[in-house]
């Protein structure tokens, strides 16, 4: 076959494929329009049923079960819209409706889909449903999913429902891959830390990978238990700057004076973000007589943001007297003093 013949063949195949895809798009578009009309009809029908129930005018049991998958999808979509429109006012009623129409079972079925996007939706739906054995089991089962986003969604659902019974399992599920890097993972542990009443400090005594520590320290900060400060302070020696920063944030959240000395030492850390957080932590934990000098030193830090934070911490601790009348050492200090109203802008 000559080069030209090969080219003809190749372009014919490509052109055929492009046309095929084009007609597939048209078909999909038309199907979607039909589906949208059908969904609108379901919405219309179900809105009349749902509003009296959500408003407590009619009994929950009067609601029928959606017969088809598309009907279930439409009702769930409608409930989501109502939830957004009412801005959470009827969230409890909506949860009851979800349980009544069998949304939890539907969510569990979505979790068995081979498509990750469907499984994510399944986990999100279970998190939205009421706390039943079915939804809890589904979410716990999703913690073993192969897709990190499904695990993340399930962990978030469990945390919001205050159903994290085995934090170690959740931690390991998130640390298995990059799911633990997500800020959502940090939120999971923050929410859990805020609500968990049992003593879980034994977890702070074990060895964890870098992101395992980040999540636990986030939870420890949210828990706000002063007796755990020594366990958190120990993490300030960790080689990861992220762990050190999170430990300082936890100390700031707890605000116990025991954290002052460690935060003072962290002001000498090589990473500017750690030093900035240390200055912030000092404002929450320390007293002016303990950390005034350290903060004054930070006013000459090579990083502008550290200086700005140190000045703010000094002012928060009532150290304005230390600064009044002080001649700015350089342009950055002058700029910060003007910003804080310590010197008049005319003198700049």
């Amino acid at each position, binding site marked *: 076959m*000559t*080069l*030209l013949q090969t*080219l*003809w063949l190749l*372009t014919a195949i*490509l*052109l055929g*494929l*492009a*046309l095929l*895809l*084009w007609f*597939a*798009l*048209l078909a*999909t*578009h*038309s199907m*979607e329009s039909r589906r949208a009309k059908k969904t609108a009809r379901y919405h219309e029908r179900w809105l009349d049923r749902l509003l009296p129930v959500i408003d407590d005018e009619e009994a929950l049991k009067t609601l029928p079960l959606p017969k088809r998958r598309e009907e279930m999808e439409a009702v769930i979509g409608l409930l*989501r819209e109502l939830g957004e429109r009412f801005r959470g006012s009827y969230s409890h009623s909506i949860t009851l409706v979800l349980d009544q129409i069998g949304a939890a079972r539907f969510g569990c079925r979505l979790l068995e889909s081979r498509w*990750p*996007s469907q499984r*994510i*939706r399944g986990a*999100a739906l279970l*998190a939205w449903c009421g706390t039943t054995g079915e939804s809890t089991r589904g979410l716990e089962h999703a913690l073993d999913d192969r*897709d990190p*986003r499904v695990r993340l*969604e399930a962990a*978030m659902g469990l945390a919001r429902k205050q159903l994290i019974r085995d934090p170690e399992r959740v931690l390991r599920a998130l640390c298995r891959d*990059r799911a633990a*890097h*997500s*800020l*959502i993972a*940090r*939120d999971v542990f*923050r929410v859990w830390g805020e609500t968990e009443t049992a003593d879980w400090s034994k977890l702070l005594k074990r060895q964890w990978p870098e992101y395992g520590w980040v999540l636990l320290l986030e939870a420890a900060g949210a828990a706000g238990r002063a007796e755990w400060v020594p366990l958190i302070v120990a993490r300030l020696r960790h080689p990861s700057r*992220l762990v050190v920063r999170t430990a300082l944030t936890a100390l700031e959240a707890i605000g116990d004076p025991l954290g002052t000395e460690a935060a003072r030492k962290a002001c000498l850390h090589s990473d500017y*973000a750690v030093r900035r957080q240390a200055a912030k932590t000092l404002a929450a934990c320390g007293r002016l007589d303990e950390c005034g000098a350290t903060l004054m030193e930070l006013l000459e830090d090579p990083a*502008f*943001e550290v200086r*700005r934070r140190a000045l703010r911490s000094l002012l928060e601790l009532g150290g304005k007297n230390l600064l009044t009348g002080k001649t700015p050492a350089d*342009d*950055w200090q002058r*700029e*910060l003093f*003007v*910003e804080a*109203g310590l010197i008049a*802008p005319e003198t700049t």
Partner: protein
Amino acid sequence: MTQWLHGSGFATFLWTVGAIILTLQGLQNVIYLLQLGRAVPEFLRARRRASRLREWWLLSSENTPPVTLLVPGYNEEATIVESVRSLLTLQYPEIEIVVVNDGSKDGTLARLIEAFELQPVRRALPHRVDHQPVLGLYGTPRLPGLLVVDKKNGGKADALNAALDLAKHPLVCAVDADSLLDADALLKAVRPFIDEPESTAAVGGTIRVANGCVVKAGQVLEVRAPSGWVELFQAVEYIRAFLMARMAWTRSQTVTIISGAFGIFHRERLLEMGGYSHGTVGEDMELVVRLHRHAHEQNEPIQVWHVPDPVCWTEAPDTLKLLARQRTRWQRGLCETLWRHRSMIGSPKYGAIGMSALPQFLLFDVVTPVLELLGLLLVPLCTFAGIFSVEFLLAYCLIVFVFGICISLFSFVLAEFSLRRFKRPRDLWLMALGAIVENFGYRQLNSAWRVLGIWQFLKKKQGWGDMQRKGFQKPAA
């Protein structure tokens, strides 16, 4: 004459040039096809990221990173107040808006002061990046997140640097004052920073053509295909060349362009690198290339993403004259960036950026347009003169036109499958028509403008040129 043509080495020379042109065009098309294949999984990944729950989470979580919007403005008295009002309605938990009046000669500053009842405020200006002197800072207790900076004129990069210097939040988002942002633009674009907060350095949002769309109160309510040919071709091009290529680059982590109209960056990284670069009209591409360069030299791996959701809508030029001005400027910017960072091209030290992304730009965006124009003149002329065979001409037409049509159609269909933006079948047909017709004239014109841009770069032409806009509020087609 014909005998001379055939007898001398001239015919061999023409054959060699013809073969090079054909090979390069073929290679370019193969790479475009491969890029399409690579873009598909990236679309799927972006769809998984984009659940409604996530948007709700972003709005309610304490961990959502605050963002400072950097809004440079020059002589925008007619639109600046509406633009800022529109930015103030963005859905995001914590935003700061730094508007820079870059030495406007009109009443831009006065309009802002009057509309928002601004007063002089005090804010530290550390001068960590180069910019022209700031003449005044204005704010209002009513809108604590709004800061207006009045400074001497220094150009877009200079204005962005001033805003960057004053920004307080960890993420900064550079936006064009004359573009429209979707209300949830930040929520959509910030997602990679949520998933990989430590390694994500920048995220670009997809820019789409607003011409023809139904626009009300600064929001695109319905996406429609433009009615004019020039705008229609651009609408197709924004999908084919910009969206698809950038999704493929995201897959291979070689995104080197984030549009100046909408891009989110890690503020500290920008400050470390000295902010935006002066003296180039392609400051957006230059910044991202420098970001990669800096990361490789510091041995600190970074990720640069492109999100497919159309978050920013721009008014495309509706005349060939304006379009030519825009495209030659873009080409100059590209050439300036490649020249500045020429040591990266082909260097394994810079990974895929040095070995793949930048050489591709050089080959397909600088060399190929020249050869393409040459080919358009040479191949038919030589065929009719009997130097090339008709088969050669046919092969050329197949590669240039039929492959081009296929790629344009593939791109549009894939983008529409993933994003589902057009509601009316009429718009689908119009876009498909645009995808076919753009290959006969528009793409060749584009190559000509590119060549002109290269010429202007070689002549060291500076400046942006005027960009007259008609505004978004005109009745939809």
